[in-house]
């Protein structure tokens, strides 16, 4: 029994080690929920008479996606449903960021002030 499961355990350990080596452990990012249309630009430039939340919701009706702006970095969010509740607000996102696709694979989102 042990002999049969040995290679599988070794493969799982290797995979886990590879994930650790690639830095794929979740991190926490704090920022504002924005959209990929406005990115790091002020929402008031885009839709003057609307709030930031309304602007984000209007932009994401089309092809643009919810994103997190953390300082100047704009990260697309893998979860496109939950962020709708937090449009324009400061949130804390836990997840794994993929630099190549500039996408944050979301594990959880909560308001930064904890409410």
């Amino acid at each position: 029994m042990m002999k049969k499961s040995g290679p599988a355990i070794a493969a799982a350990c290797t995979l886990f080690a590879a994930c650790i080596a690639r830095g794929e452990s979740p991190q926490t990012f704090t920022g504002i929920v924005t959209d990929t249309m406005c990115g790091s630009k002020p929402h008031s430039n885009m839709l003057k008479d609307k709030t930031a939340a309304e602007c984000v919701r209007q932009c994401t009706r089309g092809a643009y996606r919810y994103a997190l702006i953390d300082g100047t970095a704009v990260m697309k969010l893998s979860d496109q449903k939950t962020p709708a509740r937090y449009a324009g607000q400061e949130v804390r996102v836990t997840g794994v960021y993929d630099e190549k696709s500039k996408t944050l694979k979301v594990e959880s989102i909560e308001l930064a002030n904890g409410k």
Partner: protein
Amino acid sequence: MFRKISFFCILSAGGLLSASLHAQERVGTGMVDMNPAGLYLMNLASGTSQNPLSWAMPMLMIHFGHWNTMLMGNAFVVDTQQSGPRGGDKLYSTNWLMASAAHRVGAKGMFETNLMLSLEPATITDRRYPLLFQTGETAYGQPIADGQHPHNLIMGLGVHYAYEVAENTIVDLYAAPVGDPALGPIAYPHRASALELPQAAISHHWQDSTHISDDVVTLGISRGKVKVEASGFHGAEPGENRWIIQQGTIDSWSARLWYFPAKNWAAQVSGGRIAHPEALAPGDQIRLTGSLHYTRPMAREGSAWSSSFVWGRNHDTGTPHNLNSYLAESVVPVGARNFITGRAELVDKDELFSDEPEIEERLAASAGSTFRVGSYTIGYTRDIPMFERLETGIGFNFSAYSLPAAIKPWYGDHPAGGNVFIRIRLKPPA
């Protein structure tokens, strides 16, 4: 007539020029000073047609002061080989470039002017490229059979004024000396699912051939997930001089209902009466169409799996015939740089031998005048990045056809066609 064209040319050029003159002010990428009416206009394809909202149009957006400009462009250089006695070979290019400039008018209004150009009158020589079983329009006074006509130099020239009359409700007035009335699905050059196919669909003249019409006026209202629109336009298809803007009376009409159940979906039904569309065929056409479009964005920005299902029916008052067409089409990105694409069509064709009246008469006596033809295309494109602002790639596609036995003596038992191409498209910034 001249005054009318001049007015629109000046209006369109004025918009684009005004945008460029403001270059001294604030220039930047992205959009500024928008409103819901502007966001609505930004999602339109040609005329007032619309792909699913989730499809990211490959569009460059630059603002000059308070003017927002958008630029899209697509070109294919194609070598085609078509089998059999009615097939042909050719090196040609299909291409188009679309520019628009939009400016806010008051708090809730948006004005937009657009211009779409094509160099196909020059890059498709002899007024056609070979495409088995394709029919429609004329070349050198003869009806085109087994070939596709080029598009006009000016594929589109028009203005929109959109206004947010209530929350989630936009009214759009579109007027165009050359434009796309509210009839049919998104025309194939602008359809997300046809993005990697250089050649026309053989059901084009059953479904979306009015995308270049003269003297178009459309009024539409969009509320939430529904859009209703109606158009008046000149029904005659473009003449053989592809370098000019033609004019005519508004003698045709159409109406279209859109439904967008979710971001990834778009559906439309439409109908219209087109007055004497074909120069050499008698009568009007009553066209009915229905279509369903799906786009699923992929992880890579701008990449999407898009599919379309289209039905189109022409009732020719001159013959009178009811001719149906069915199309299914898809493009699937595979990995970061590969696209698999396909198109399947069934079309009732009654003009295949319109360039050879003797054969047409003989067939009419023995086998009838309408033949259901099937076209089945599979293709592949590989992106080969070469320039920062261009999506360059190479690809090929292969088409096989099904046809009735009665016309096999002229087409062969297994007609086929192939295309090898280079694709160049303007690339939006990442």
